């Protein structure tokens, strides 16, 4: 009995391995299963964070929902997989997730050596330091001899090493796998300094026992352009990710929001007409319907709406637009035109 069974099992196993070798495009796969699987953080307020009911919100979550709106016309056709910093690229490479909007820094090695592509930048960040106010420190250059808590497996860990080395300051690094443990250890006084992307510092500060006792130092020691990531070699899907972000930015620039998008359909502005699919067939060019951008704006909103709802001045994070403003308002956000 068992002797006959064994070859069957082996055969099935080999078949399973063979099946993974063949592959449809990501868009076909996504359409077949009916939703987009997004890799997000394990809980970073403002970017991707589940509430008590398990609903995800945040800037990165909105990007994923915008992609779902572009593909299906339905922003709820997105599912979320929380990933640690260490797991994220492997999860994307292996096809466990379709897109990775997970506050991930765009670096050359990640772009070129991991078989991945960055679809743009949805938040320009930089690494900062948070300390207790009673330390009396006002600049990161006074941190010589400090112990520093951070996340393992991030660019943060490398930047802090570079910064302390460049300024010839001794330090002790304490690197945890999960952000919650970093916060707990910093809160317990194990470290003098907590370092991560500045947006993350503002978000994690909310989790401390007395958020008011801590301050973020003025220095930004690195460039951290955060953006969504897709697998390399599937240009169609790469285009959809890229243009989902561009559509949100162009919509803000053209003053199209989720509230006025229906009226804007009858606008005389040719740029708006092209954006909303009234004129031309730009949606077909990326393998979608012509109202792809309309669906994004209607269901999720433009970039400004997403920013203000998740991380903006009226949220607990209270981050101003700063460098994340549009190019014509003094920021870096610049999307190629739709034409």
């Amino acid at each position, binding site marked *: 009995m068992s002797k006959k069974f*064994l070859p069957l099992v082996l055969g099935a196993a080999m078949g399973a391995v063979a099946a*993974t070798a063949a592959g449809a495009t990501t868009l076909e796969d996504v359409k077949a299963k009916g939703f987009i699987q997004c890799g997000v953080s394990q809980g970073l307020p403002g970017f991707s964070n589940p509430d008590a009911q398990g609903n995800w919100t945040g800037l990165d979550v909105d990007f994923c929902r915008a992609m779902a709106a572009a593909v299906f016309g339905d922003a709820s056709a997105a599912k979320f997989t929380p990933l640690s910093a260490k797991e994220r690229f492997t999860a994307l490479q292996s096809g466990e997730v379709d897109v990775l909007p997970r506050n991930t820094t765009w670096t050359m090695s990640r772009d070129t050596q991991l078989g991945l592509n960055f679809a743009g930048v949805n938040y320009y960040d930089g690494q900062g330091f948070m300390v207790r106010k009673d330390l*009396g420190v006002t600049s990161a250059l006074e941190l010589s001899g400090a112990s520093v808590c951070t996340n393992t497996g991030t660019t943060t860990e490398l930047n802090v090493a570079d910064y302390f080395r460049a300024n010839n300051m001794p330090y002790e690094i304490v*690197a945890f796998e999960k952000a919650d443990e970093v916060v707990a250890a910093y809160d317990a006084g194990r470290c003098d300094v907590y370092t991560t992307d500045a947006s993350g510092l503002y978000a994690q500060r909310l989790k401390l026992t007395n958020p008011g006792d801590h301050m973020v130092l003025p220095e930004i020691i690195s460039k951290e352009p955060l953006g969504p990531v897709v697998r390399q070699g599937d240009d169609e899907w790469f285009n959809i990710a890229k243009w989902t972000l561009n559509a949100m930015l162009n919509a803000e620039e053209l003053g199209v929001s989720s509230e006025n998008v229906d009226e804007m359909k009858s606008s005389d502005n040719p740029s708006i007409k092209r954006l909303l699919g009234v004129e031309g067939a730009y949606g077909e060019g990326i393998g979608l319907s012509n109202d792809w951008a309309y669906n994004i704006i209607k269901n999720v909103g433009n970039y400004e709406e997403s920013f203000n709802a998740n991380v903006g001045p009226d949220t607990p994070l209270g981050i101003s637009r700063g460098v994340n403003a549009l190019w014509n308002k003094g920021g870096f956000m610049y999307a190629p035109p739709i034409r």
Partner: protein
Amino acid sequence: MTSMERDTAEAPARASLINDPKARGYFYQAVLIVALVVSGYFIVTNTIANLERQNIASGWDFLENTAGFGTNQSLVEYSETSSYGWAIFVGFLNTLLVAVVGIFFATVVGFIVGVARLSNNWVISRIAYCYVELIRNIPLLLQIFFWYFAVLRAVPGKRDKWSFFFDTVHLNIAGLRGPKPIWEPGAEWIGFALILGIIASIVVSRWAHKRQDQTGQQFPVFWTAVGLIVGLPVLTYLVTGMPMHLEHPNFVETGPILRRGFELNVGINVIPEFLALTAALSIYTASFIAEIVRAGIQAVSHGQTEAAHALGLRNGPTLRLVVIPQAMRVIIPPLTSQYLNLTKNSSLAVAIAYPDLVSMGGTVLNQTGQAIEVIGIWMAVYLSLSLITSAFMNWYNQRMALVER
């Protein structure tokens, strides 16, 4: 079923080869081996093809690139400019350290609790019983978090300390600090003296054994050995003009608040991550070892104890010379598994920022994206560690088995 087939095959072989159970057995084994080789080959080639298709770099060249990240504990020289390969090696040594120290304490505590569990004293045996049942039924990760987060909050902060042993050893949230020996030229003689002391102790112990066998006279081997192993180096230290001094930790109490507390890299610092992990691993594993020891002792027939008592041995020597040696052959095989478990469980270190093999390797994995290579290294290292431990324990087991009469 197979054995029945074999039994019938004892009859004169008249059946064809197809019905010969022996031939069929060989055939199935050959099929299995071929299938394994083919599927192994298939998995490897398929992985390589997929990696190439997805433009993922592979190979071992990344091990020589500069790591660029720091660590809070390394037993060898390590800096941000060291290579990825060296970073993984640092992590490996840290794993080894926590495994060896953990195994030592787990064994000591386990034996004590295991023996206490059989004590005639009701309070002692109940305490041991509660310890075993409480500790072995709580998941290890929770215990690690308990030692790290709960206990850590109870000790003084970085700008404060608790001192022990005449103000030489200090504890605070940044770790356990003590004096560091600084060796000067001439100190190597102390090392030679130590080795000489150990060799002399072994010789004395052999001679004493032989003499006791021949004449029945006893010799205080233990105290002689202590004298030789401790006394010889101390004597050498004094004779060579004290070529060693202690570097005490420097506790700063003035100046900017950030600089107060213990100065970095002065004296020896045992990081709290190591303390918490070692405590959790030893205490957890000790609860299993205690049960193994209890079972081993109970496996020795009570007649042995009675016979020893009848010969006039007291309780202590009875346990040490009669019961434990016989219990050891029952204890060692399951004890080996516990040692292996402790070593493998040490990979939970990553949860509390102890830079072990998995933690350091994980950072390398993330910086380079070489998932398959790094995971391969992890598996190879844990496998080799386990096999080496098993080999040693099997050798020890064979030695102990000779004691059996």
